[in-house]
């Protein structure tokens, strides 16, 4: 990060545009995926986010950033998965009020650091809603026919709280249940630990860690203790404290 400035100009997010909500699907009891059609589509990178801005009749606005869950695939539609936060001004509106056919102001794609371009091995570690940007990376890898490039470890409290439960399983993914694993699950419930990383530390890979601040800190500590080079760890911390 201290090397010379890049020869390319800094990325700029597009202008605000009015997208149309085309589909809403539940992922868990507290998470929904919102599929948006963009009038001015702009190719995104796996890991980037969009800002959603709500405007009240009196001009009051509220904006929040949400990661893109869909892979870069040339589509004019993107999917944002949004966790409903208690008192979340924007997330509760999206969950409780927004409906297909509605217009939503969005701006993006944003971010040039927590992105995976599909050109290196990647170790993806997500906790809770932190799996969302990693899902774009997994979907990209699978879409390229290169699932071998990624290793995704997802931490969730229980199966009911696991995002993308139907799509996650595969030889390149592992699920860690911290509280209530499904019946027959052999790993005892508990936080992500060093054994969960065994076999995942591929040479020259970049690690992408996403979740709450506590999850991100414990996951990066595990990686560093296991010898993963600190400069190759990229972190995105989510949400309230």
């Amino acid at each position: 990060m201290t090397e010379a400035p890049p020869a390319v100009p800094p990325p700029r997010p597009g202008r605000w545009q009015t997208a149309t909500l085309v589909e809403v699907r539940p992922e868990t009891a507290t998470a929904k995926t919102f599929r948006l059609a963009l009038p001015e589509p702009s190719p995104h990178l796996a890991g980037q986010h969009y800002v959603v801005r709500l405007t009240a009749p009196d001009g009051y606005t509220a904006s929040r950033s949400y990661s893109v869950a869909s892979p870069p695939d040339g589509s004019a539609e993107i999917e944002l998965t949004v966790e409903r936060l208690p008192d979340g001004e924007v997330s509760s509106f999206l969950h409780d009020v927004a409906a297909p056919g509605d217009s939503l102001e969005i701006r993006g794609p944003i971010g040039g650091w927590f992105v995976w371009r599909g050109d290196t091995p990647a170790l993806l570690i997500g906790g809770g809603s932190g799996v969302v940007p990693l899902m774009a990376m997994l979907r990209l890898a699978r879409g390229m026919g290169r699932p071998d490039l990624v290793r995704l470890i997802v931490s969730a409290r229980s199966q009911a709280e696991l995002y993308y439960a139907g799509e996650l399983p595969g030889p390149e993914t592992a699920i860690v249940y911290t509280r209530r694993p499904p019946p027959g699950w052999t790993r005892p419930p508990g936080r992500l630990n060093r054994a969960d990383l065994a076999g995942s530390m591929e040479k020259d890979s970049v690690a992408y860690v996403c979740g709450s601040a506590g999850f991100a800190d414990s996951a990066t500590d595990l990686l560093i203790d296991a010898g993963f080079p600190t400069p190759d760890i990229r972190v995105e911390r989510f949400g309230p404290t």
Partner: protein
Amino acid sequence: MSFTRGFRRRDRGPRDARLPPGQYDVGSDWPVLTAEPTPRLATDTWTFTVEGLVEQHKTWTWDEMHALPPSTFQGDIHCVTTWSKLGVSFGGVSVDTLLALARPLPSATHVLAVGHTGYTTNLPLADVTDGKAWVVWSYDGRPLPVEHGGPARLLVPHLYFWKSAKWVAGLQLLDHDEPGFWEQNGYHDRGDPWLEQRYQGD
């Protein structure tokens, strides 16, 4: 203006005048949004350096830094992700004090703040002088927690908070603007929250 179907402001009271446009009051929370692993820095080996276009390159140890005249900030901080934290207090030393000892050359126009992690952020020199910036090691009277940049971070509260480099290691004085970490990744070179300078081009 187009508005969002069904969206209403919850709090019908007057908006707090301390909130810049597009920001909300995070209350007692203090979100942690860092792009790198949290470093563990020992204060007995910690240093802070001012270098580049100065008459005198200066490096302070933790103890030397604490021997400088103390300075505090009380006010508000604003994160580009739209939270603001109102009525906070930090303690440390004014950047003016550090620059007075290093004596910037007339050619210096910008600074690049550098963190012990390698994080960088760029600022016009005028945004870190005349009582606008600090190196702080206490928050609310207690040691600054490591997740918030402890043992010491830069504090430039009139700009978006990514300018207030966590785990700050020093300032490089330059005769040009040089985009830092987030600025290379699409964020604004100045970052004035009252002008909503969030992204490049704003």
